[in-house]
């Protein structure tokens, strides 16, 4: 190998270390900064629903770590808000995304399909804070004045659906998040559905299957892995979303939602809102607790990603082949 080649190889190797370095930096910062909070708050951090930094409290030491007298940090409200709003988003967004993918690949003529594809991809590119702004000025008034009262009177016998309309809250966050994950689910599902081998589809048609049967028995099993991957990617985005949720969540504190319309808060949105006020705590415990929230969020999103990888590795891929063989 010539000198220039060796130098080139060396430079690119070093550059590719930057990704490792950045991830290492993030993990170390989160671990180091959240350590005091982990020591002091322990398991109560995950189960408690009271987040009270007690900024007027006296400076004391617990297990040798400085904190304020009477401060309690429970992430329960944020954890609940994050998980439930993402669950609602999946509930609304995944069927819509798969429906759009079916429309693009099976229903629409090519011209319409191309136009709708472009619009859906545009949806993916819109900044999240713009989603939040639209939610604030269009969606929330609509929810407060029309949708939530209608739902509450229609489902007056269902607990959780018969609460007081509020506007900013769980339902609004779920809807905004679902709009943000639809393009991810739709465009990846479309791509994998288009990859279904044509001879399988033709074989199905030759056997006299209807379009739905071809979709159900051939295309969907073939695309399953990709669709699951897309869904999990969308979940990852919903869990970590900040600005859109922060504008429409109602920023609940110290109270779990008692209906679908109640205000909530999510880990990511609360982190974005609170770091500057956290510096008024002289013990540094507030800041540390926020970093522990970050660590919790990182663990959740990484776990979601690992599960996606495992599912894909376990090989749903062979499913399409078995269907054909039988």
């Amino acid at each position, binding site marked *: 190998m*010539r000198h*220039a080649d060796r130098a*080139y*190889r060396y430079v*690119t*190797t070093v*550059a*590719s*270390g930057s*990704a*490792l370095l*950045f*991830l290492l930096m*993030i993990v170390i*910062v*989160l671990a180091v900064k959240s350590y005091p909070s982990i020591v002091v708050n322990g398991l109560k951090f995950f189960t408690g629903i009271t987040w009270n930094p007690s900024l007027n409290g006296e400076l004391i030491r617990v297990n040798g770590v400085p904190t304020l007298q009477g401060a309690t940090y429970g992430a329960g409200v944020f954890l609940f808000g994050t998980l439930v709003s993402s669950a609602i988003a999946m509930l609304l967004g995944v069927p*819509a*995304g798969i*429906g*759009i993918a*079916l*429309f693009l690949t*099976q*229903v629409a003529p090519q011209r319409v399909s191309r136009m709708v594809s472009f*619009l859906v*991809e*545009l*949806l993916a*590119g*819109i*900044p*999240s*804070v*713009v989603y*939040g702004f*639209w939610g*604030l*000025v*269009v969606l929330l008034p609509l929810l407060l004045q029309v949708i939530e009262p209608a739902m509450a009177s229609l489902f007056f016998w269902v607990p959780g659906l018969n609460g007081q309309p509020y506007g900013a809250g769980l339902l609004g966050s779920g809807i905004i998040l679902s*709009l943000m994950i639809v393009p991810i689910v739709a465009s990846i599902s479309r791509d994998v559905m288009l990859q279904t081998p044509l001879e399988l589809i033709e074989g199905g048609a030759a056997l006299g299957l209807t*379009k*739905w049967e071809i*979709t159900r028995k051939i295309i969907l099993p073939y695309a399953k892995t990709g669709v699951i991957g897309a869904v999990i990617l969308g979940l*990852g985005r919903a*869990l*970590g979303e*900040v*600005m859109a949720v*922060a*504008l429409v969540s109602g920023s609940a504190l110290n109270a779990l939602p008692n209906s679908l319309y109640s205000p909530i808060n999510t880990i*990511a949105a609360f*982190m*974005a809102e609170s*770091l*500057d006020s956290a510096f008024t705590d002289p013990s540094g415990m507030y800041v540390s607790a*926020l970093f522990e929230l*970050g660590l919790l969020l*990182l663990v959740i*999103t990484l776990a979601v*990603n690992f599960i996606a990888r495992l599912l894909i590795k376990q090989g749903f891929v062979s499913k399409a082949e078995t269907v054909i063989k039988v």
Partner: protein
Amino acid sequence: MMPEETETVQQTRAPFPWRDKRIARNNRIRKLKWRIIAFLAVLSVIVVLYPLLDMLYLFAYKGLTLISLARLTQTTTGGTGVGNAGLANAIAGSALIIGMSSLFAVPLGVLSGIYLAEFAGERDRYAGMVRFVSDVLAGVPSIILGYAGFFVFVLYFGWGFSAVAASLTLAILMLPYILRTTDVALRKVPDSIREGAYALGSSKTDMINRLNLRIALPGIVTGILLSISISVGETAPLLYTASFSNYLPSALFHSPVGYLTYVVWTYSQLPFAQANDLAYLAAFLLMLIVVLINLVARVGMRRFMKI
């Protein structure tokens, strides 16, 4: 021929007329199922596209009625309503931050991609780890990047709220996208080109720089453009690294910077009409930039790739 055939078919089916009816009904149901699914598919398109079109209309309408030279050349003057003059500081700050973070992320990402596609072997463990870590990095929530950037760049390195801290943090967000697209685009270059280059006595460096990179260029540029369009719309990583400033950016260190997404985020929540107007205008500009970048990336680059 034909009438005879139908006759024989009818003959064979004659003993069980009810079976025919059942099959016909069954077939109707089977076809109806697809009709229902197709209807639901169309419905989901309408349900999703309605908010999108409403969003586009709202911000395009507001933006076009509000846009003026004054609002583009004067700066914000705090949130008190009266003096919320313009977005010049936010536009300049956004451009500065995006430009600088591209300056960090593009060389790092492209060089990493070159290593992965051209130098690493098939079973290179280090390369596998880099690909894995870059996927993980792409999945890290942006507010966590903001926290890490705040602690490391703003506090630990002591750069304060600054353009440098903000753009390094954004660069972490951009890196995985650029790295991945470079890797993929280079690996799509056919091996026959590499073999041809070697056969003509080219060095590896020349082969990569003069052939492979040129062939892969549209793919790489598309990746860079898309990563820029993502970072234009980011707020969370900048909140605690750039902070915000009502003045035009003047220094790279120890000097907070304004940016467009922050205007949308805070001014949309203020109870002053003039502040809200600036938020609408900023949202319009953001959407315009993102749509333009996406158009250039998808349409323009597709044309290049064909040649």
